[in-house]
């Protein structure tokens, strides 16, 4: 009841004194709007860069350098690490190529072969090859071959046997085409068994599954892989894994540096933001304090009349605080609108990809800014409120 009365009285006075109120609001908006834009730029820019890193599986790839010797069991061990999202052995590079024949007249396309399996981040939601003769193509390979999902292609694998070139052909079925962003070179993705079969054939061994001739008896049980395809679970895991491999003496190529750069950019922008915010807020705080004190001095007579009529100390404090709150609320509204306009403009200017923003504030960030603004407004009004609370009813009643 009395709170409502005070809110109404404070509002009436706030409106009647609109010039002074407008000054206070504009002073606050002048600080608030640029800070919101800066905040939005920081979180938009860093957010976009981080999103880009997180959405690009290539960033999480860890590529072993130099030839290694890994057993299937060792790679299985790697896959089970909590930091690892996906790990699969690779066969020898030289054995992992195929010549693909287009179904239309055109040149043969030589592609590299990569093993794939469940959880391969490059494939995403694309179908997995279920059978030995099912493969996926990279976008560039598919375009060169004019092949799409469901097509069958003739593939040839060659070997030199005692100086004589031999080759085997088999038909492969395309079950998917990777997006260009996932893989840029000409490649086919097949089951590890397919790559192992081709490697066996190159090594001169027979492959029963394809009925390819060669030496009988295989060393498959002790197969040694020169490398692996490995993806970290998230950006943080990249650095952890890099250190782990380094400790084991295995040199790896990672994007850890790029990740660290984005991280440090985020941190440094954060520091820049807080320095500017600190300076701006300190200025706004001083201005608001001064304006609250000035308002109390101006309204001294009114406040002492309220005191005389019998309003309690808390009411006078509320009178001053509520007006600071009004300033805070109106400034937030105007500052928010100014920010939205700036955000729209900046995003139109800088938008590079759909779903990416140069400037963006989440709702919780805006709410945080709102709470901070109102808190600061009240704090700044405290000095004025303190002075108002000390006003005696007998003061200022007789200055004509």
């Amino acid at each position, binding site marked *: 009841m009395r709170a409502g009365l005070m809110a109404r009285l404070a509002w009436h006075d706030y409106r009647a004194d609109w010039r002074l109120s407008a000054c206070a609001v504009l002073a606050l908006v002048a600080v608030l709007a640029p800070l919101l834009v800066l905040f939005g730029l920081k979180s938009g820019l860093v957010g976009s860069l981080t999103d880009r890193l997180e959405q690009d599986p290539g960033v999480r790839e860890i590529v072993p350098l130099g030839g290694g010797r890994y057993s299937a069991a060792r790679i299985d061990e790697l896959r089970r690490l909590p930091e690892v999202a996906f790990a699969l052995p690779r066969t020898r590079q030289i054995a992992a190529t195929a010549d693909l024949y287009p179904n239309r007249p055109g040149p043969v396309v030589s592609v590299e072969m990569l093993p794939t399996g469940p959880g391969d981040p490059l494939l995403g939601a694309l179908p997995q090859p279920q059978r030995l003769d099912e493969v996926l193509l990279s976008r560039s390979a598919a375009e060169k071959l004019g092949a799409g999902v469901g097509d069958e292609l003739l593939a040839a694998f060659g070997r030199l046997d005692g100086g004589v070139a031999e080759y085997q052909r088999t038909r492969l079925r395309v079950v998917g085409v990777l997006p260009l962003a996932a893989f840029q070179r000409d490649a086919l993705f097949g089951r590890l068994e397919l790559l192992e079969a081709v490697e066996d054939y190159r090594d001169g061994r027979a492959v029963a599954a394809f009925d390819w001739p060669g030496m009988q008896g295989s060393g498959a049980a002790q197969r040694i892989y020169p490398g692996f395809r490995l993806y970290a679970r998230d950006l943080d895991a990249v650095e952890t894994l890099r250190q782990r491999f380094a400790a084991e003496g295995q040199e790896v190529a990672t994007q850890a540096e790029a990740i660290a750069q984005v991280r440090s950019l985020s941190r440094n922008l954060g520091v820049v933001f807080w320095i500017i915010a600190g300076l701006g807020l300190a200025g706004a705080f001083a201005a608001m304090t001064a304006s609250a004190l000035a308002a109390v001095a101006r309204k001294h007579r*009114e406040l002492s*009349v309220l005191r*005389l*009529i*019998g309003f309690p100390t*808390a009411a006078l404090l509320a009178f001053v605080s509520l007006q600071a709150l009004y300033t805070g609320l109106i400034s937030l509204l105007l500052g928010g609108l100014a920010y939205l306009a700036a955000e729209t403009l900046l995003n139109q200017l800088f938008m590079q990809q759909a779903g990416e923003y140069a400037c963006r504030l989440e709702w919780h960030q805006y709410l945080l800014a709102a709470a901070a603004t109102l808190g600061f407004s009240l704090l700044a009004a405290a000095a004025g409120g303190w002075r108002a609370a000390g006003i005696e009813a007998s003061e200022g009643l*007789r200055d*004509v």
Partner: protein
Amino acid sequence: MLRLRDVRKSRGSGSQRFSLWVPRLDLYPGQRLAVVGASGSGKSTLLDLLALVLSPDPGGELSLRSAQGEQDIAALWRAGRQDRLAELRSRELGYVLQTGGLLGFLDVRGNIGLSRELLGLGDDGSVRRLAEQLEIVDQLDKRPSALSVGQRQRVGIARALAHSPKLVLADEPTASLDPLNAARVMQLLVEQSQARGACLLLTTHDLQLARSVGLSLLGLQVRRDADGGVTATLEGAG
């Protein structure tokens, strides 16, 4: 209702000292009193003491009898119970200031109704009735700045009476008005206070006007003391 015994209030010291001494003063409902005296004779000090906005010097007795029982005002002052004093003011007192003391950001209706709103009293038509009786009903929606000085003073009187206080104090209510207006405003103030059974105590330097509306007169006798200070004594109190 308000009872003063040997109440003093001093300001300054030495030859700059000014003291007000009220040996005895009792205020009852229906009383109509005028304190007359030259400017600087302590009229405002007396009024502030009665209005519970100025603390009396230690010693003496200052108490208020209300519906809630007897209140020792001097003790409340000593205990620093400002909000209790404010509450008593809001309920028991109406104060007419020399210049109206209106809030510029409220219209006339809001100004008159303020004391009622503070007490949580609904609008029972008394605001409008008062405005009619004080001949300012056409001004209800205007801001005080749009009114003449005389009209403002009537609004001030209406506000002081709107919550039906027991004690109405008025500080030179007609000092800033022309004689014709002054007589009318004084008459309205006395009439309306009386109609509500309130005790009216006002200060004025217009002895003739005070007599013409039937006010009992109290005088402040100023005398220089041995230490060079000045003491004003309230005389003729009933």
